């Protein structure tokens, strides 16, 4: 069957999609590429600079510090949210009215606009008036997230865990519910312990959804902007200045278009690379 008919007009049918992708992805990306290799002093006058901005960004201590903070933040929230999400999903009822109640409760944090989450936690954690701030200080611990870097980190991580663990829970729960009863029954007959059931049945069956959960949480947390911006504004000092916050400072605060564009591209490549690494690692056994 190799007698394909050439039909040149077919290109017309894919044209709308090509145009759409070009306008919402390719053209803006190319603009950034364009900025990243040029210098401007205003008046719409540009000079070609080659890879100067890339070298500058890659060698800047400020970028290193933001990247390190970002990696630490993402590492911590993944280490908390993935196991916690799986643990909660395991304890949720499989069916009945309580299953629905749990699901709705779990979905609630995901429905709140991100800047509202930031504002909520800002007020919640204020040492003078916030419930959380008052409680922690009431326990005799000196806590003020607007002044102490550790407290700022603690609050930001707690906020992210509150906001996003639900996503992991919902995905893990969906994975768990797709396991047929026969697996549990067979395990019972085989004399498997609760841990063995988790290790050899539940975890392998959740693998695909957990891969998605890790990828989503990685990408989202690596690009986090709104919530810490509203909560801490990147402070105190630069303590919670993650990559996105730093990027906005450079691009819109200082209006350094060239370095900001170069940083955007490096940022994008890091996200792409790490996502690929995660995906490859988690899907490694799938091929065999």
């Amino acid at each position, binding site marked *: 069957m190799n007698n394909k008919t050439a039909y040149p007009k077919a290109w017309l049918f894919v044209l709308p999609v090509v145009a759409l992708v070009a306008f919402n992805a390719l053209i803006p990306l190319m603009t950034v590429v364009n900025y990243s290799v040029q210098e401007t002093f205003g008046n719409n006058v540009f000079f070609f600079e080659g890879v100067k901005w890339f070298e500058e960004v890659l060698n800047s201590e400020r970028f290193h510090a933001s990247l390190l903070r970002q990696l630490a933040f993402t590492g911590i929230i993944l280490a908390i949210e993935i196991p916690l999400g799986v643990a909660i999903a395991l304890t949720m009822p499989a069916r009945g009215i309580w299953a629905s109640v749990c699901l709705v409760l779990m979905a609630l944090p995901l429905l709140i606009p991100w800047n509202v989450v930031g504002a909520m936690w800002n007020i919640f954690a204020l040492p003078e008036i916030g419930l959380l701030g008052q409680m922690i200080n009431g326990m005799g611990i000196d806590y003020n997230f607007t002044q102490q870097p550790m407290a700022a980190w603690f609050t930001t991580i707690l906020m992210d865990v509150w906001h996003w663990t639900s996503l992991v829970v919902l995905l893990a729960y969906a994975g768990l519910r797709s396991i047929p009863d*026969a697996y549990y*029954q*067979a395990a*019972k*007959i*085989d004399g*498997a312990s609760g841990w063995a059931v988790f290790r*050899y*049945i539940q975890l392998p069956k959740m693998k695909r959804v957990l891969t998605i959960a890790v990828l989503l949480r990685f990408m989202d947390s690596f690009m986090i902007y709104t919530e810490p911006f509203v909560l801490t504004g990147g402070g105190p000092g630069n303590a919670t200045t993650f990559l996105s916050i730093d990027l906005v400072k450079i691009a819109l605060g200082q209006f350094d278009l060239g370095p900001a564009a170069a940083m955007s591209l490096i940022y994008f490549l890091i996200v792409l690379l790490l996502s690929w690494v995660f995906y490859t690692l988690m899907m490694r056994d799938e091929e065999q």
Partner: protein
Amino acid sequence: MARISLQNLRHSYLDTPRAEADWALKSMNMDWSDGGAYALLGPSGCGKTTLLSIISGLLTPSEGRVLFDGEDVTDIPPDQRNIAQVFQFPVVYDTMTVYDNLAFPLRNRGMAEADLDKKVREIAAMLDLEDTLKKRASGLTADGKQKISLGRGLVRSDVSAILFDEPLTVIDPHLKWILRSKLKELHQRIGTTMIYVTHDQTEALTFADQVVVMHEGTVVQIGTPVDLFERPKHTFVGHFIGSPGMNVLPCTLEGATPYFDGIPVPTEHPAPGNGGAERLEIGVRPEFVSFAEDGIPVEIVRLSDAGHYQIVDLRHGEHLIKLLAPEGAELPSEAAHIRFDPSHTRIYADGWMMG
């Protein structure tokens, strides 16, 4: 090895069953002898899987007791009951190799690796799984996976019964036959009690020594395949077993002789009286209906060729009767008469065989 007895067993999935229909299993007493090959046969929803789960211990019956060799195991969990079960969809532990899958039940019971290795290899050889021992179980075909499920039961030397819940459902037709013969062979070799749930009569009749036919939560007949064919105790068994199923026609009794639509039907199994039944019927299989000079007048409605025989649909008034004729047999023209073989014509009162 064990004899399994069910005493006054009843089960309902409802907390407070009221009507008779609320019971998924109606009251039953039954003995499964040690080393037997049994098939539990019935349509979907007849309670056969419920019964199997009660025997395996995955389900605790609402009422009654389950005894293994006279010992009450009703409240003992499945892993301590010494049974193995193969499910409809193959259950394998995906991340493990075939070897580890087979070793899993033994490891859970703390067997030493050296003994375990010997046992696993022995069972793998029995099931023709030797070449795949090092492979990941998830990569096997459905029949390979089903063999692993079975193997996990066979490796345990303490298993007294192996239960099968429609194990061939997802197997390709040409492999079904091979796997079924393998099961039969294994049963002869190891002599463990096997209980095989299915809705496929061919599977049941070829596998089992004793077939247990279930209908609406009740066991309607236990017997050899020949029993079920020649002496169906209930009209349901007559319908369900055989292709096409038994003809069931309303009748009246005058003395001991049944009459169908005013025509006497001779039988070697006369009824001693109607026993107060509301409904009296004659049951005769299509195999034992033949054309005759006189008897019941019928007209031929349709003829279907089923290979080495033909199925003739006949009509007498509003009643449809099926007849099996040999391939290429000369059929009478429109107006014909049929007779029933008296030795295979039976009378049923409210569905149950009389005499």
